[in-house]
């Protein structure tokens, strides 16, 4: 029986097998000249880009491939960064593994990667571990990718939904269970909400997105969110799904589902809810996020560690500002790299903070505003 099956496999495979042979021939050919060798050609990119992109003064060279790991939220942006980096510095590449913020910090602290990607700044024991990894020098959080988090839902017949911090908190901790709950209908006048049950989706893995989202709920819900914050979802209701993509897929599959994902995942049938901080529902748009970002406050003022105090943004009632945003950081050593790595890290981050910011706007992120970009570039230049 097995033999028969094997023969069957072989029969089906035959025409494709021929391609395989061609491929292995090509494989040998490719061995003789694909990777450009260690080029030290410094190609300063023209910093003529518009908007807040500053001037890129890139000194190429150093370690290649550079390795990073972490947040899935910035993966799409990181792909663009890597592409722009190779464009600016031919022969230099970056490998970024999107395994989640928690894993990124762990691998950075274990010296397995050159920089970590995280949706929330280093905190607690991670700070000490990161400083130890950097040879006793402080590790810095550099916000390079700013993206709005969407409270995405799928509800047939409802194309516009407004939430505020309090209602969102009650949905995500299970107090509001149906779509036509009085609390929901009160802030959505004129919207015909059905009596379907609400299915909540959250991240099952440790995630900075979850951390930011819970911080938002805690800061804006006027005390309705008592579950606390952290990288694990604490609402105690609904379904968990792996990764932003898993949450988006989960919501898409169920009518009446709601969850939180980075705005770039709001596609194919998902809708982002408007947020009302007290001055009416505000739509998720780059301009509205930019307004919220202008009010950014840093956790360590005057330092090159640019961890942001997002709670202030979440709690603010700025008219026309969309407050639920996520700053994803690159976690780097201020000192303690070997010369080769430091050179490559600086080159990569410089490209990412400048020429690569405009292209990521197409992917659902918000380019760094001028003020923030200046600070980031100062920090990058200080790495040694």
């Amino acid at each position, binding site marked *: *029986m097995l033999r028969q*099956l*094997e023969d*069957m*496999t*072989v029969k*089906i*495979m035959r025409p*494709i*097998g021929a*391609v*395989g042979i*061609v*491929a292995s021939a*090509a*494989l040998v*050919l*490719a*061995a003789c000249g*694909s*990777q450009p060798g260690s080029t030290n050609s410094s190609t300063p990119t023209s910093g003529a880009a518009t908007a807040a992109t500053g001037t890129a003064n890139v000194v190429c060279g150093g370690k290649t*491939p550079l*390795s990073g*790991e972490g947040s*899935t939220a910035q*993966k*799409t942006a990181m*792909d*663009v960064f*890597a*592409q722009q980096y*190779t464009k600016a510095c031919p022969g230099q*590449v970056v*490998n970024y*593994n*999107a*395994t989640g913020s928690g894993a990124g910090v762990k691998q950075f602290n*274990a010296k*397995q*990667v050159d920089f970590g990607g995280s949706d929330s700044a280093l905190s607690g024991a991670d700070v000490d571990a990161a400083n130890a990894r950097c040879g006793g020098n402080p590790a810095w959080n550099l916000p390079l990718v700013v993206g709005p988090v969407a409270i995405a839902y799928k509800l047939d017949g409802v194309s516009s939904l407004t939430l505020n911090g309090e209602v969102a908190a009650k949905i995500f901790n299970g107090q509001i269970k149906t779509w036509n709950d009085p609390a929901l209908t009160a802030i959505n006048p004129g919207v015909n909400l059905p009596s379907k049950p609400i299915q909540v989706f959250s991240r099952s893995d440790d995630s900075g997105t979850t951390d930011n989202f819970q911080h938002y709920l805690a800061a804006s819900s006027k005390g309705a969110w008592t579950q606390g914050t952290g990288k694990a979802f604490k609402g105690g209701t609904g379904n968990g799904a792996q*990764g932003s*993509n898993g949450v*988006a*897929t989960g919501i898409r599959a169920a009518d009446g589902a709601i969850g939180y994902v980075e705005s770039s*995942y709001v*596609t*194919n049938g998902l809708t982002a809810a408007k947020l009302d901080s007290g001055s009416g529902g505000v739509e998720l748009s780059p301009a509205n996020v930019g307004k919220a970002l202008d009010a950014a406050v840093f956790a360590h003022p005057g330092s090159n560690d640019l961890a942001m105090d997002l709670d202030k943004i979440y709690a603010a009632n700025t008219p026309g500002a969309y407050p639920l945003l996520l700053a994803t950081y690159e976690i780097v050593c201020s000192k303690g790299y070997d010369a080769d790595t430091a050179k490559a890290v600086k080159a990569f981050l410089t490209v990412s903070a400048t020429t690569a910011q405009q292209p990521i706007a197409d992917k659902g992120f918000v380019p760094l505003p001028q003020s923030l970009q200046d600070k980031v570039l100062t920090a990058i230049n200080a790495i040694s």
Partner: protein
Amino acid sequence: MTSTLSDTEQPALSPAFQQVSVGRKVKNGTATVLVWLSFLLAVVPLVWVLYTVIVNGIKVIPYSNWWTQDFGSVLSDEVGGGVLHAIIGTLEQGLVCAIISVPLGLMVAIYLVEYGRGGGFSKVTTFMVDILSGVPSIVAALFIYALWITTFGLPRSGFAVSLALVLLMIPVVVRSAEEMLRIVPDDLREASYALGVPKWKTITKVVLPTALSGIITGIMMALARVMGETAPLLVLVGYSAYVNWNLFNHEQAALPLLMNNERATNTMDPGTVGFDRIWGAALTLVIIIALINLIATGVSRMVAPKKK
């Protein structure tokens, strides 16, 4: 002629073989149907899987860039690029794993069959091999992580993956080689001894060549199995979208790892780039493993002992 038979015309005994009784016919029929049903039940998912992989993966496979480029220059939602980097990783890691585990496994099998012969130590060895073959791949991966990365402080690499695969491959090689060596008739060994040939020469010149075809098939099957392993890849090496020939340093892609990476990055809806890439990579892996099995069949036919 009357229709009634007289007593003398009737046979004294009823014939030994009568027509098959209805009860037995029913039993036979039921058994046949059940066997066929279970055969179909076993085959349907296999064929279904194969069909799904081919139908979904065929779209990207015919393009030459699929086999000659990597994903380094294309974004995750852009059409183009290829899986050369992952093919290189899969083949390199599989090959190095085979180089380590085949000699080890083969020698263990030879010891068990030719020297151990049911002694206490060989019983312990067999028991250990059995335990090892039951170790889940994630446990093998974590063991290597603890040893290679935590204890020795070495970086994650393709070689660490190979080491974890060795743990999974050795028991399979030992078991299959052992079976093959056991079915070599003792007559051959005795004939060899009778001619005054020493034991080691009997093993290398008589026993091994006789069993070689079966051993090679076993090795190739084991190789095909470990090349599709996923858990060690997730734990022991980072993904890279670029070609990396270096097994000992930096991130290195492999086909299952590539699929996992694309799944984490892209939406899986049909028609999207991520969908095409994942199924294309799956089909590529199936093709590579089918090719290996094909080569195994060919080689084992070539080295099989001549009949007649």
